[in-house]
């Protein structure tokens, strides 16, 4: 694997390899080991043009746990504000000879834009409304952990599908692994052509509850809503599309609930849900670190070295 841009280019086998490696990493971390030498001498730049605590911290820790040199650059500190283009910024950073640039950017296809201009490998940490492949890999790991086999599993993604890179990456990857994907939310947040994504739109929570083995709730991006006028009020969203105690009871007994975080408590999800045994939200965070360590190691071609350390 040279880059990780889109789940379109990740095969089923690659997914399984990354997830298996991530499980091994997680085991060792749980045993208290937090330092590996696999990426010693490697340089990773986290280039974030959008605010993000969770994903950036996760990538930063992943690099540091692997002993790579990690440089964090956020948009406010970079020269982008001085009118430098993305390509110029990245070209300049490439002169530092990083092995990997982890990029988050507000524009769809930002990774594709820079690839022809640099030598480093690119990991897409979210490009606009396009994709967020490391999130899909950690979500897949979390589902695998609870269900083992994804074949025929019904996954429902609820929320703003149109503007969600998490939804797009998950749909592509989980379908590759044999899951059936459904989407749910206000019609204004459903794509005009759901068939393009190979998903079915559900129209009521009753349907969701009946079908879902896995329910992924997306974060409602409050900043997006006011501008686009896609629903009248948060109260109305919570009433019709949020998950609460009563709805929780309607779900299948063994259904699991996921959320990419950070959550808006009381809107798409409330306290009862977060603390319910069905919720695997905190596992997702833990898996996120392990998956990102596995991704960075795989891209640097140091998988065997890391396995030696893990098996030691």
């Amino acid at each position, binding site marked *: 694997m040279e880059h990780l841009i889109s789940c379109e280019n990740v095969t089923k086998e690659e997914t399984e390899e990354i997830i298996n490696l991530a499980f091994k990493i997680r085991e060792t971390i749980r045993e208290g080991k937090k330092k590996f030498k696999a990426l010693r001498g490697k340089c990773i730049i986290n280039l974030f043009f959008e605010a993000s605590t969770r994903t950036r911290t996760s990538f930063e820790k992943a690099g540091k746990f692997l002993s790579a040199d990690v440089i964090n650059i956020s948009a406010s500190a970079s020269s982008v504000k001085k009118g430098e*283009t993305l*390509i110029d910024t990245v070209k300049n950073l490439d002169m530092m000879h990083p092995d990997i640039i982890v990029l988050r950017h507000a*524009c*769809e296809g930002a990774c594709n834009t820079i690839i022809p201009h640099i030598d480093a490998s690119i990991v897409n940490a979210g490009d606009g409304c396009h*994709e967020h492949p490391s999130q899909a890999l950690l979500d897949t790991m979390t589902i695998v952990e609870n269900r083992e086999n994804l074949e025929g599993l019904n996954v429902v993604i609820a929320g703003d599908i149109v503007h969600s890179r998490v939804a797009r990456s998950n749909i592509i990857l989980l379908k590759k692994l044999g899951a059936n994907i459904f989407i749910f939310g206000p019609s204004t947040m459903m794509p*005009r*052509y759901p*068939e*393009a994504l190979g998903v079915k739109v559900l129209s009521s929570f009753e349907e969701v509850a009946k079908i879902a083995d896995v329910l992924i709730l997306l974060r409602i991006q409050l900043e997006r809503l006011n501008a686009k006028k896609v629903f009248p009020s948060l109260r109305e969203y919570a009433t019709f599309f949020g998950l609460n105690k009563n709805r929780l009871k309607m779900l299948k007994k063994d259904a699991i609930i996921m959320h990419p975080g950070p959550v808006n408590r009381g809107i798409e999800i409330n306290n009862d849900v977060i603390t319910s045994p069905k919720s695997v939200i905190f596992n997702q965070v833990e898996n996120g670190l392990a998956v990102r360590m596995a991704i960075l190691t795989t891209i640097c071609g140091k998988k065997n070295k890391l396995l030696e350390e893990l098996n030691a």
Partner: protein
Amino acid sequence: MNNLLIRGALVIDPSQNIEKRMDILIENDKIVKLEKNIPSAESTFIIDAEGLVLTPGFIDIHTHLRDPGYEWKEDIESGSLCAIAGGITSVCCMANTDPINDNATVTRYIIEKAKQVNLCDIFPVGALTKGLKGEEIAEIGQMVKAGIVAVSDDGEVPRDSKLLRNAFDYVKSFGIPILCHSEDKTLSTGGQMNEGYLSTLLGISGIPPEAEEIGTIRDIMIAKLTNAHIHICHVSAEGALKIIEKAKKEGVKVTCEITPHHFTLTENNVKTFDTNTKMSPPLRTAKDVEACKEAIAKDIADIIATDHAPHSKDEKMVEFSNAPYGIIGFPTLLPLSLTLVEEGILTLSKLVEKLSFKPAQIINRKDIGSLKPGQRANITIFDPEEEFILTEEMISSRSKNTPFLNQKLKGRVKLTVRNGRIVYNNL
């Protein structure tokens, strides 16, 4: 006396229903004779065009020459050089320059500069509204006096329908057409590509074809109301073509154009996030491309125009959503149009009509678009069979923003004559 005899070409002149091997004699800037076997004694300068096709010079009524104000993208000279290399001897240039061509001073500047450059006819298009703002009617009369051949707010869209009604009514008295970029921008706002399957996959904000359809209906309704002649620019959506077809049947004075990229490429070309596939209106679906071809075959689309829109490399070398809309069109006009003939959509003669005679009629120019003796000698000679790879070096435009760069094309311009003078020679 300056004269030029071109021998042996297949002459195609739809204005006279001519399609046969003939010789053509030019004296000074005029065509004087179009006959079989004109004796060589009649001219001192002879060109052998055996095996080539000779037609009236192409007329491109939708271009952006960026001069004044955006000369790093294009200027009148580089634009002219690029046009004549594409066999185009007349271009209409849109008003979205800086300053905007919404007054006679800017119009005169363009005409003056075109005269100095003196490579092809440049007919300025004036703004319909002051500053392209859609608030007040521009001084159209003054600009007509200075030499504009049409008005257009292309680049923007007037939102106020009452103002549009007044503007259409006003333009009528000057006998020039209104070139409409028909779009409901309140519906397409934020859109970067066609709203369809691909935009769903890429997460890119879509421009629904309905935005074009609503814009087209609105403009046609106002044309019907005012009885003005409107010409709808760059039609790209099947639905919009249906609306135009119906309006034509009802007798509304509406004509329209389709660009080569809209009858050649689909939204699938956007897949790689290549900013040279970003334009307005956007590339649509295969179904729309088929509809465009059918409209050309059925004469619903009167002409082909390029919407030549140069942007520098720096401007296009950015993220897809941050890139400006538009691609250059002069270098690919002929080869892409010839594919229509190859596919049997059109006869060669019909194609030539849509590239020369018909556009001349739309802008009311009787001195171009025909090879009748007495006409100004604007002539294009091309080899429909020659294949070539389009390289940056071949493009005289300041900008090279075309998705056809480094691709193999078929149909090459060999010689361009304007006002009796050879301005481009690739024989």
